[in-house]
Each structure stands twice: as C-alpha cells, then as structure tokens.
C-alpha cells in the first residue's frame, strides 16, 4: 500500500461524504480538516493522481437515475474460463467481473441505461457461451455506514 502522509490520511478518512455544497467547498471542508483550500485541492489531486482515490465527487446511484444494474453469476468449467471471460467482458454493459472461489466462479455486474437491456445481455451471454447465467438482482438494500479507515 502506498504510504499516506497525514494530510492524505485526513482527506481519505474525513471526506468520504458530506463534501459541502457551497461556493468554496474546498475552503469550507479544509477548515474542518485543518487544511487550507490550496492544501486540500493539492491533496485530493495527489490522491486521485496516485490512484488511492478512484475519483472525487458525487457517487451516483445507478438505479435511482433510471439505469439498470444486476449482479449475475456463472459456473464456468476451468478449461473454458479464459474464453468465457473474454466473451462476457466483450459486452460493454459488463461493469465489473470477478473470478471467485466457488463452483459459481464468475461474478459480474451488468449495468445499462435501459433496464430492459439486462435481460437481453443475459440471453446473449447464455447463447454465446452455452452456460446458464444466474441473475441475482437485489431485492432489498440495507443501509451501510461504511467508511474506509486508513
């Protein structure tokens, strides 16, 4: 893990939400963290530049903005794993795809502006690979207060 200086640590731990909706938000948030406006902007720039932050800004909720998102899993024979991964990943609607330790060994997220695309993508992958895709749409989301501590 990249070593984080105290400024970077303060930003990561202290600014995972509640970034102010004000005209000078870096100044206002910096005051809470004991940083000047310039120090905070530089610190965020360093963290996004090094990849420690994916980005800095709004975290949009895909379903709430009208798109569709669905987790899906497949049991892929080991000998076909790379071929199937390439076929699945070729769909632009696949946002994430992970190999996992289970008989269901390929887990991916399908994301589409039009929720009707989800079922189409699943049907396309089943047709292209001959392997069943198990759709696991969330039926309920529980509140999570998680914050990374570094």
């Amino acid at each position, binding site marked *: 893990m990249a070593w984080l200086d105290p400024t970077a640590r303060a930003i990561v731990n202290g600014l995972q939400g509640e970034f102010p909706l004000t005209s000078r938000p870096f100044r206002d948030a910096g005051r809470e963290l004991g940083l000047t406006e310039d120090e905070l902007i530089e610190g965020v720039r360093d963290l996004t530049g090094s990849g420690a932050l994916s980005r800095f800004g709004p975290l949009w909720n895909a379903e709430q903005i009208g798109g569709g998102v669905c987790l899906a899993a497949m049991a892929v024979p080991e000998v076909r794993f790379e071929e199937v991964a390439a076929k699945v990943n070729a769909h632009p609607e696949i946002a994430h795809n992970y190999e996992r330790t289970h008989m269901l060994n390929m887990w991916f997220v399908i994301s589409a502006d039009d929720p009707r695309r989800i079922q189409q993508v699943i049907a396309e992958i089943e047709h292209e690979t001959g392997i069943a895709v198990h759709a696991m*749409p969330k039926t309920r989301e529980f509140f999570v207060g998680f914050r990374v501590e570094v």
Partner: protein
Amino acid sequence: MLDATDRRLIAATQGGLPLVPKPYRAVAAQLGLDEADVLARLQSLLERGAIRRIGAIPNHYALGFTANGMSVWDIADDAVADVGAKVGALDFVTHCYERPRHLPLWPYNLFAMVHGRTRDEVRTKVAEIADLIGPAERGHDVLFSTRILKKTGLRIAA
C-alpha cells in the same frame, strides 16, 4: 424523476468534480447554468438518493484493502429484514443486499461484502457477522475474489 439537465449534470460529474476553488461554478459554466442552479440540483439529487454521497471515493485495492470477501448467508425469509439491517450497520460491511436464492445450487439470500487487508482479517470479520446473526443463520459461505477480470466505472450517457 430526473430531467435532461440533471442527466447532463451526471455526465459532467461522473468522472469527478473539477479540482479548483469553485468546482460547482466550473461545472455550471461547462453546462451553461448558474452556480446556484447546480448547487440546488445537487442538493435535491442527494435528498432523493440519486447521489449517495459527495466526496472522496476510495480505491480499496490501492489503499491496501486487497482481500475482498463476499459473505453470503441463508437466512429465513421472515428474519432477513431484521438481520440485514444489523449486518449492514457493522462498520466493516461495504454493501449489504437481499438477493434471490437459486436452489439447489445457491441457497443464500443475504450478501454482505467485507473488505480487509488480508483474507484472515476478512475471515475474522465474517466470524463476527456469524456471532451477530446467531441462530437465524442456516448456513453461510465466503467467496474471495481471486482475480479482477474487468473493472470499469459506471458510465451514463447524457
């Protein structure tokens, strides 16, 4: 519902805010809006849940949280709401969802994602979840990710 201007605001900010002293004014200028209009829209989108939060979006892997365990639980349907609320409240759970079972292959209906620096750290946290759930649990497993096959950000057309 979101209007066309909201969607342009999403497209303009989904890669992050401009890192300048007046980021909302910069976004407003890009979209031909007033800063006050951008602020009011973002506030409304937060209140409606279209924006989960605004701030630093950490890259767990880059920060050293390289072990990623998807813990999955078989919980009686009439208990899952209560159990899910308790599990989601744990400070190391990053996502917590109810999802459909796929019997007989997949008996689990509650998913709780746990990030840690090592697999042992994740296993210890999963054991804490098991203690918290107690007898409401009929079985669980934890699936570690062994490889990232693809990872792209959320992309929304304007």
